[in-house]
C-alpha cells in the first residue's frame, strides 16, 4: 500500500487543466535538450524517471525485471509555468519528438489568478470564430454592360487621403479667366497626405524589439522609396529614435502621443532639427484590445535604448494612465490637444485621435466633425491586439469594428461629411489571413484606411500567437520569436532584413489582392469608400445591421 503522503496531491493541477499538453515521444527523442532550452516559460524540463524493464536472455524465455533510470522531457503542472503552446520546442526539435496539443477542455482561467492577480497576457481576443468582416463577400461584379477590369494590366490608383478634406463649398477657390485658382490667405486649408490605404498600426519601440521595429521601418522605407507605395506606420506610444526622426524618412511615420507621453520630451526637442514633417500625429485615447486601460511596458523591457528614447530611467514599469490626465471633457480637452499638436508642426501635419471601438464612438465622431483641426478618426475594434493587458479586457471588452465604422460612416453621410473626416478602421484586419479582403470590406463599409498590427507581426516576423491563447507572451519579454522582447539573446533570433523583406512581400501581395477585388467591381481610379452595394453576406442579421445585401 502506498503511503498516505503520496496520495495527498489535492492542491496540484493535473495536465488536463492546462490549455496545452505536451506530446513527447520517448522513441524519437535524442535527449539533445534543445526543447527545454528554448521553452520561454520553462513548461518542460528534463526529468529522471524510474522505469521497470522486463527482458529475457538466453534461448528459452526467462523474463527478468529490472529498474533503471531514464531521462525524459516532462511537462510541469505549475500554473505559472503553463505551456502556452507556442511550439518553439517543435520548431527546434531535430527529430519531431515533441509537440504541444491544444486541450479544448482546459480550465486554465479558473486557476490563473495566483496572488489575487488576474491573468495578464499579450496578444488578442481569444475568439477563433471568423469576425463579421471576414464573413463579408464582394458580390457586385461588373458583367453585363461592360466587362470587368483586368487586374493585371489596368492602371489602379490604390491610395487614400489622411487628413481633413474641406467641404467643396468651403474651398478657397475662385474662377479666373476659365481657370480655378486658390485665393491665398482665405481661410485654413487642413493638411492632407495621400497614403496607401493599409497602414501598419501603432506598435511601440519598447513593446517591439529593436530588430522587429527596425525591420518594419526598413520595410516601410523600401515600399515608399523603391516600390512607390506610400505606406505609413505608426510609432505607438514610446517615441521614435531621434536619428530617424531627424532623417528624411520621418515622413513615413505617424507619431503617436498617448496618456503617458513617453518619448515626447525627446520628440519636442527634436522638432527644430527635423527636415521632414511626420506623416501624421495620432493621439491615442483608447485601444481596441483593452478599452479603458493605458499602455504598459514592464520594467524588464525598459533597457538602456528604450529608456533613452522614452526619456525615463531604466528598469521601471512604464504604465500609461487609462485616460489622458489633462482630459476632462471631450469638447474642450480633445480639441485643445488636437490644436496643440497641430500647432507644434505649424498646422502642416494631420492630427487625429484613435479611440477604442465603442457604442459612444458617434459622440466622439460628431465632436470631431465640427472641429476643423481634426484630421480623421481611427477606431480600434475588439479584435485589436496588445503587448500587455488583462485577459478580461481582451476577451470581454470592446466593440466589433464593422458596425462601429458603418454607423459612423452613415452618420457622416447624413451630415454630408463622409469625405471630410476620414475613418480609419483597426482591430482584426487580417485576423484569418485575409488582409486585403478585410481591408476592402471595411473600405466599402465606409473606412478610408485600415490599420494592421498582429497580421504584420505574424506575416513578417513569424509570430506564433493565435486566438487559442497560443504563445501570447508579449507581456513577459520572453517572446520566443524575438518580436516583443528587449532581451538580446532572444531578439537576435530575428533578422531585421528578413522582417523588412516580408513587410514588402505582404504589402505587394495585398496590393495585388486589392486589385483582384476592385477590378471585378469596376473600380480603379478612387478607393471605393462606402461602396456598400458591392458587399453581401449570408447572415441576415449582419446584412440588416450593416445595410448591405443579404445573399445566400
Amino acid at each position: 500500500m502506498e503511503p498516505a503522503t503520496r496520495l495527498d496531491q489535492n492542491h496540484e493541477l493535473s495536465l488536463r487543466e492546462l490549455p496545452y499538453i505536451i506530446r513527447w515521444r520517448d522513441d524519437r527523442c535524442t535527449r539533445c535538450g534543445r526543447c527545454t532550452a528554448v521553452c520561454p516559460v520553462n513548461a518542460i524540463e528534463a526529468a529522471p524517471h524510474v522505469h521497470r524493464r522486463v527482458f529475457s536472455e538466453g534461448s528459452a524465455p526467462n523474463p527478468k525485471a529490472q529498474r533503471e533510470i531514464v531521462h525524459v522531457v516532462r511537462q510541469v503542472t505549475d500554473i505559472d509555468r503553463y505551456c502556452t503552446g507556442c511550439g518553439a520546442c517543435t520548431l527546434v526539435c531535430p527529430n519531431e519528438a515533441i509537440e504541444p496539443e491544444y486541450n479544448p477542455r482546459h480550465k486554465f482561467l479558473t486557476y490563473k489568478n495566483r496572488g489575487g492577480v488576474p491573468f495578464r497576457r499579450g496578444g488578442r481576443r481569444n475568439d477563433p470564430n471568423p469576425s463579421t468582416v471576414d464573413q463579408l463577400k464582394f458580390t457586385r461584379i461588373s458583367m453585363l454592360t461592360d466587362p470587368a477590369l483586368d487586374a493585371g494590366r489596368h492602371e489602379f490608383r490604390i491610395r487614400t487621403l489622411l487628413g481633413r478634406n474641406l467641404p467643396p463649398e468651403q474651398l478657397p477657390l475662385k474662377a479666373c479667366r476659365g481657370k480655378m485658382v486658390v485665393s491665398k490667405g482665405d481661410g485654413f486649408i487642413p493638411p492632407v497626405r495621400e497614403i496607401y490605404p493599409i497602414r501598419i498600426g501603432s506598435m511601440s519601440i519598447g513593446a517591439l524589439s529593436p530588430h522587429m521595429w527596425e525591420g518594419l521601418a526598413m520595410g516601410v522605407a523600401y515600399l515608399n522609396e523603391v516600390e512607390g507605395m506610400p505606406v505609413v506606420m505608426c510609432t505607438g506610444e514610446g517615441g521614435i529614435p531621434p536619428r530617424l526622426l531627424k532623417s528624411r524618412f520621418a515622413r513615413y511615420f505617424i507619431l503617436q502621443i498617448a496618456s503617458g507621453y513617453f518619448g515626447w520630451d525627446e520628440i519636442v526637442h527634436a522638432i527644430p532639427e527635423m527636415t521632414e514633417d511626420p506623416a501624421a500625429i495620432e493621439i491615442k485615447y483608447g485601444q481596441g484590445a483593452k478599452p479603458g486601460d493605458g499602455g504598459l511596458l514592464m520594467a524588464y523591457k525598459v533597457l538602456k535604448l528604450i529608456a533613452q528614447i522614452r526619456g525615463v530611467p531604466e528598469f521601471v514599469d512604464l504604465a500609461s494612465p487609462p485616460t489622458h490626465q489633462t482630459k476632462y471633457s471631450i469638447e474642450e480637452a480633445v480639441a485643445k490637444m488636437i490644436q496643440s499638436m497641430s500647432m507644434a508642426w505649424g498646422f502642416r501635419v494631420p492630427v487625429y485621435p484613435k479611440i477604442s471601438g465603442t457604442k459612444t464612438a458617434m459622440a466622439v465622431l460628431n465632436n470631431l466633425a465640427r472641429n476643423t483641426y481634426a484630421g480623421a478618426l481611427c477606431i480600434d475594434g475588439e479584435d485589436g491586439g496588445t503587448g500587455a493587458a488583462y485577459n478580461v479586457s481582451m476577451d470581454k471588452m470592446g466593440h466589433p469594428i464593422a458596425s462601429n465604422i458603418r454607423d459612423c460612416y452613415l452618420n457622416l453621410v447624413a451630415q454630408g461629411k463622409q469625405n471630410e473626416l476620414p475613418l480609419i478602421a483597426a482591430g482584426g484586419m487580417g485576423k484569418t489571413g485575409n488582409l486585403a479582403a478585410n481591408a476592402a470590406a471595411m473600405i466599402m463599409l465606409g473606412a478610408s484606411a485600415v490599420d494592421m498590427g498582429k497580421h504584420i507581426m505574424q506575416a513578417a516576423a513569424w509570430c506564433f500567437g493565435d486566438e487559442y491563447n497560443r504563445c501570447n507572451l508579449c507581456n513577459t519579454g520572453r517572446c520566443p520569436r524575438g518580436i516583443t522582447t528587449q532581451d538580446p539573446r532572444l531578439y537576435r533570433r530575428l533578422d531585421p532584413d528578413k522582417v523588412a523583406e516580408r513587410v514588402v512581400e505582404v504589402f505587394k501581395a495585398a496590393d495585388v489582392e486589392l486589385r483582384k477585388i476592385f477590378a471585378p467591381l469596376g473600380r480603379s481610379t478612387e478607393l471605393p469608400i462606402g461602396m456598400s452595394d458591392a458587399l453581401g453576406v449570408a447572415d441576415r442579421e449582419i446584412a440588416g445591421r450593416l445595410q448591405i445585401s443579404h445573399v445566400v
Partner: protein
Amino acid sequence: MCRLCAITSSEYFSPMENILALNTMKEGHDGSGLGLVLKDLGGEFGKFKGQPILSGVASSKGLRDLDNYMYAQGFEEIHMWQPNVDESAPEPETGRRDHYFAKVYEYPQLYRDRKQKEQEELLLEARLALRELGEEDESIFVFSFYPDVVTLKEVGDPLELGRFFRLGDGSLEARIILAQGRQNTNYDIYLYACHPFFLQGYCTMTNGENTAFVPIMEFLTSRGFPGYVGYNSDSEVFAHILHYTHRQLGYPLTYYKDVITPLSEREIDTRADGEALRLMRRSLRPLCIDGPNCVIGFTPDGTAFMVQDAKKLRPGIVGGVPGKYALVSEECGLDEAVPERDKTQDFSPMKYDMAIVAPGARTLTRWNQLNTK
C-alpha cells in the same frame, strides 16, 4: 448599352433627326425606351422663350391633380402642347398613356420680377411636389420644368415612338436635342429611370455602368440641395454632378471632367492650376465616376460636351460642320446625323479629353486635361 445621339445646330431641327440616328445604332439598344430633351426651342414654343415649360406624362386623374396644384401655386397656363398622335402607328410598349404634355406657364405674379435663381428654386419646388403627388400611383411623371426646355420620355422603340408621336410634324423643333435609345439592364422599365436627366438648365445622358453610383449618390443627396433626388437610374448622378460643379460651385465646364475623372497626384503637378485642382480632387473625391461611362450633356448657355473615362473601351464620337455638330455613341449615328462633314475631323475623346461644342454649334474644341494651355 444605351445608344446616345445629341445634335446641336445653329438652325432649328426636328427630333426625328436624332431618332433616325438612333435607329442606325439599333444593334446596341433593345428599343426599351426613348428619352428626348429639347433646348432652345422653335416650332410652336418659339414665342415662349422666357416662360417655364412643364413636361410630363399623366393619367386623366393625374392631369387634374397637376392642374389643381399649379393653379393653387399661382401658375397661369398659357399654352399646351400635346403630340398629334398617329392613331395608325403602333402604340408604346406599355400601352398608351392618357396625356403626354408640355405646358407653358406664366410665373405666379409674385415671381415675375424675381431673380433667375429664385425663379429656378420655385420651378424646382413645383416639379418635386408634382413628382411626389403622382409618384405612388404613377399618375404623374414630370421630367422638367424650365424655360425653353421640353422633355419627352416613353417606353418602346425610338423610331416607332417618333412615328406614333409624329415628331416630324414641325410642332417640336430645337437647336439642341439630346436623345437616348434605351438598353434596359439594371432597372425596371420605369419612366423616371430614363435619361437624359435635366436639372435647372443642366442635362446629361450616359451609357455604360456607373460602378461608383452609391457613394456618388450618397454624396449628392447629402449636399442639402432639394433637387438631388430620384436616382432611379445610376445615370442621373452625372447630370447632378454637372449641376453641382458648374452651378453650385461655380467651376468652369472643363472642371467637370477633372472632377469625374480626376488626374493622379503626379499628373496634377503638370497643370498650371494644379494647386486648385489638388484641393478640388480631394474635396470631391466621392464624385469620381470610375466608369466605364460616356457622358453627353449641355449647360444652360447651350454648350454641348462629351466626356468619358479611361475604362470606356468603345468611345463615343463627335463630328460635324460649323453650324451643326453631333455627339453620338456610335459612328454610324454620326454618319446619319451629319453626313456632309469631313470625317477626318471626327473626334473620339479619350481618357483625358473633353469635346466641347460652343453654343450655336459654332466650333468644336478638343480640350485635354494634361494640355490645358
